[in-house]
């Protein structure tokens, strides 16, 4: 589960947003799972998987603190100590139907890999991607190549002004897959789409279920985001 991976690219693609590609031979990654990345800090950083092409795994991450600043400074050829893939992803196999993908900010990346997989399975998708403003938008063209894509920005500087909930109200789908900030997940959790799956983010410790740091409230107690999730049915968690 722990492996050394070699960085083959690491570049800025939007405001404070980096795309890192690593060579990770022999790995099988389910969409929605994550890797736990070692930095010089004590705790690892959980990063979702934005894409897998052959041996190449792509991570997109936002530079927010010491760990991600350090990652942003990594160069081609540098080696990272990673644990993973970890957790449970989106349940793609169950749905031969129309799926709406709703992403917010740095929650967008795993939905790209999800969409590629769904397209390969012949499942129709529509993507609604929300960002703060035009300079934080990424992967728009990549998403458009895979199907209908609606972009929203809070300040209206690109796409529709407002939040993802606007376009979501007029989209018809059988299943919703979502990843993004808690406020967004809270809003989409109660949408009228019959089946809703949410990918939850939390500060993590071990990433393997032992430390009880990354729990999320559930109807009957707590669930662990790292091993019970990070993807949950909307009914399984209380946000």
């Amino acid at each position: 589960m722990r492996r050394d991976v070699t960085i083959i690219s690491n570049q800025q693609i939007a405001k404070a947003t980096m795309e890192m590609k690593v060579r990770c031979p022999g790995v099988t990654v389910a969409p929605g799972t994550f890797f736990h990345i070692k930095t010089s800090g004590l705790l690892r950083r959980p990063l979702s998987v934005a894409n897998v092409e052959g041996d190449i795994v792509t991570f997109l991450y936002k530079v927010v603190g010491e760990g991600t600043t350090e990652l942003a400074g990594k160069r081609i050829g540098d080696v990272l100590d990673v644990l993973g893939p970890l957790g449970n992803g989106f349940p793609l196999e169950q749905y031969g139907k129309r799926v709406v993908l709703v992403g917010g900010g740095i929650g967008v990346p795993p939905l790209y890999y999800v969409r590629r997989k769904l397209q390969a399975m012949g499942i129709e998708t529509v993507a609604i991607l929300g960002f703060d403003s035009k300079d934080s938008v990424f992967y728009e063209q990549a998403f458009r190549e895979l199907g209908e894509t609606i972009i929203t920005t809070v300040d209206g500087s690109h796409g529709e002004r407002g939040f993802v909930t606007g376009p979501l109200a007029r989209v018809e789908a059988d299943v919703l897959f979502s990843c993004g900030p808690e406020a967004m997940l809270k809003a989409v959790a109660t949408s009228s789409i019959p089946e809703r799956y949410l990918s939850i983010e939390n500060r993590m410790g071990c990433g393997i279920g032992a430390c009880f740091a990354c729990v999320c409230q559930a109807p009957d107690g707590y669930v662990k985001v790292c091993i019970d999730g990070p993807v949950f049915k909307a009914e399984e968690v209380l946000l």
Partner: protein
Amino acid sequence: MRMNVDLPGLRLKNPIIPASGCFGFGEEFAKLYDLSILGGIMIKAATGEARFGNQTPRVAETAQGMLNAIGLQNPGVETIIAEKLPFLSTFDTEIIANVAGSTPEEYIEVTRQLSADPTVKAIELNISCPNVKCGGMQFGTDPVMAAELTRRVKAASSKPVYVKLSPNVTSIVEMAKAVEAAGADGLTMINTLVGMRIDVQTGKPILANRIGGLSGPAIKPVAVRMVYEVAQAVDIPIIGMGGVRTVDDVLEFIYAGASAVAVGTANFENPYVCQEIIEALPARLDSLGIDHILDVRGKAYAQLVSRP
């Protein structure tokens, strides 16, 4: 046989033990390596009823360390006995059950139940958790209360009792002597140091619990110093812990007077760390010219005493 350590109730094949709260009930790590290689396992704290713990965020990274405020989340003693101990009993390693509570009666009842289970070889009395409102550290910062609780828990236990000491005291030696006099069979030390981090964007503490326990390499020098002082003041064995992540960290604690060493936070950084330390120990003993690991126990002060 150069790493085995015999302690009250415990026959450790080596002195390496994952620390309570950092290893769950072993299930996650059993997927990564054979738990039978471990000297023992200190399992997550048990309370009388299931506890859900604190709100999140529950962890925050610090320089060379981390703060946690989990809040003793656990499924309760009955579920632990019914669902967790049977799995742990399948491994050839010594199980040490960590006991917590809000009242002396809760500590006593949980101890009675856990110590009666044949899988449990010793009790670790947790009077040092800084992250719960009632009980926990309040029993571990007053020597009279600590001694009284130790006496009552010891009377209820059918297995040896190790008392886990808090570093958040003026005199750890006084605490150690108090629980030794009350009948403790051993000491485990140290628990976390109370700390806080504040988010400068919001001006508020990062942890939902506001304060939390500091662990990791940052606290190792404090832990080594405390083991060094206590080992010279008591006659019961010490299982040392606090920031251990390498084989040399282990040896530092042994030199300071510990008989075995627990590895905590390092399991989060590297889930294979206990296995790696155990594998690295023989070669390190060779390179330092140490035959049996306990040959150097307490040597840090013994050398000072014998210096002319």
